[in-house]
């Protein structure tokens, strides 16, 4: 599970940090103190060799103690991050739920046509700026790539471009689809998502990419544990004016108020729909991000406390072993003297 991966990543951080400290304090020694107690923590960590400072028998307990301190601080950090994510979620969840009505009139009028075959398509991938939020960004990117392949399936002359919102999506898509990226919008969450900002972004996207269909890929916040990847389709002005099959009822049956400017009306309709859909998408994705981060941090805290328990046991065992060894030496020495 993705959050398990985060926990393991944090665990590896601790190990590297711990071993670097011990190597700083270790004098060169021929005997490597193999860390037997570590085998209980799984094969991934057994590969780390512990070097105790020369001549110090109880040194390994110091290593364990350092490690315990790091794990405890990691636990506190992840707990705090979870609280922060929870408070962010509360704020943004109300906004997202209220914005859900915004795109409904457009879908009621124009219908939902995700499989439409067009010459030029723009896929807007909504992702987060910050990490440690579980698998939602990978999901967005996965589905964007699938949509691109689907468009390619429909013909060799079909062109698809990405517009990426959010740093994490850019990092993932840059690796293999660099050419297909049109442009990138970052740092949208700094001032919070508001309709004015989204309208400006939408305007930018529409100006720089004249496409027939815009598809927005985002994670819809269904509940605290479920984030559903969703694809919202917006048709451009030309498609609306041309009147495509499959639109709800066909726009021909609708009379246009102010008939002398139909193209302007279609223009505004397409642009407004795009801004509305993008607004809802960004809010929902922000909600999903906060929820996923809460879950990931919760799992990390749980992993850290489990790790702390095992470290405590190891520490006690090491400590008791060293005491026993000392006692044995003293007693056998005394017994030898007595004869």
């Amino acid at each position: 599970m993705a959050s398990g991966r985060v926990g393991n990543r944090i665990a590896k951080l601790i190990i590297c940090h711990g071993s670097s400290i011990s190597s700083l304090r270790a004098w060169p020694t021929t005997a490597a103190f193999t860390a037997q107690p570590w085998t209980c923590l799984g094969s991934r960590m057994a590969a780390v060799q512990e070097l105790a400072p020369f001549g110090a028998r109880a040194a390994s307990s110091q290593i364990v103690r350092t490690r315990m301190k790091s794990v405890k601080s990691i636990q506190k950090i992840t707990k705090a991050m979870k609280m922060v994510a929870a408070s962010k979620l509360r704020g943004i969840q109300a906004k997202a739920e209220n914005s859900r009505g915004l795109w409904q009139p457009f879908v009621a009028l124009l219908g939902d046509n995700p499989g439409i075959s067009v010459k030029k398509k723009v896929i807007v991938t909504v992702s987060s700026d910050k990490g440690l939020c579980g698998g939602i960004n990978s999901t967005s990117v996965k589905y964007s790539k699938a949509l691109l392949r689907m468009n390619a399936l429909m013909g060799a002359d079909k062109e698809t471009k990405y517009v990426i919102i959010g740093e994490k999506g850019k990092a993932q898509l840059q690796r293999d689809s660099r050419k297909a990226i049109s442009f990138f919008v970052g740092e949208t969450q700094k001032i919070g998502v508001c309709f004015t900002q989204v309208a400006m972004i939408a305007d930018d996207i529409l100006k720089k990419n004249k496409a027939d269909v815009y598809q927005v890929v985002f994670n819809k916040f269904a509940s605290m544990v479920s984030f559903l990847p969703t694809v919202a389709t917006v048709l451009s002005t030309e498609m609306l004016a041309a009147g495509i099959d499959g639109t709800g009822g066909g726009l021909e049956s609708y009379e246009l108020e102010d008939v002398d400017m139909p193209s302007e009306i279609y223009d505004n309709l397409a642009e407004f729909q795009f801004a509305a859909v993008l607004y809802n998408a960004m809010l929902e994705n922000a909600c999903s991000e906060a929820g996923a981060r809460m879950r990931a941090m919760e799992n990390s805290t749980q992993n850290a406390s489990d790790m702390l328990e095992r470290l405590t046991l190891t520490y006690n065992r090491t400590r008791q072993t060293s005491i026993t060894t000392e006692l044995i030496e003293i007693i056998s020495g005394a017994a030898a003297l007595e004869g």
Partner: protein
Amino acid sequence: MLSRQGVRSGLRAWCAAATARPLLARGFADAASEKKEKVFGEAQVTDKFKEDWKKIAPNFDMPKFPSNFMEARPPVSPTIPAKLTVNFVLPSQYELQAKQVDYVIVPATSGQMGVLPGHVPTIAELKPGILSVHDGTEVKQYFVSSGFAFVHANSVTDIVAIEAVPLDRFDPDEVRKGVQEYNQKMNSAKDDLEKAEAQIGVQVHSALQSALGIS
């Protein structure tokens, strides 16, 4: 004891009947007023899309679509319904959700347009002005910035606006000042963009002025 059991089962049956009765009688209005979208409608996805999806991404579930999350709209009835169903949405909230009213007057670009049940399907772009919702003797007035109004064949009206504020929230002095300010800006505009922005300001403020009934 038997009588208690009987009472309990009777109570359960009564509860079931009570919850079932409203469900049966539930029309579009009640179903749509449930903000928790637990009931997913059918996605309007073509079979070709499903096939293509299976070809390119057999291991992923199909994504969800907005049509999954929308309640189905009522069908077009042969007779003109008695009341108009109005959905008035803003980016920040659902202002009116599936409200049954007598008629609404929307500020379309071609003038104030009245929408009654049985109105011909229309797409109207809105200009800044007053939107009034009339239900019997109740009249609710909002000043809307701009947006769209869709009237469907089934007498459902969707009004989407960016900002809508009840009229009593406006300060007349500020409105007057705004008109003067934007008129000045329009006269001193250097390029087309500034002129357009000033024009929008003048339009909104004059509409506000006439809406509030001040000179």
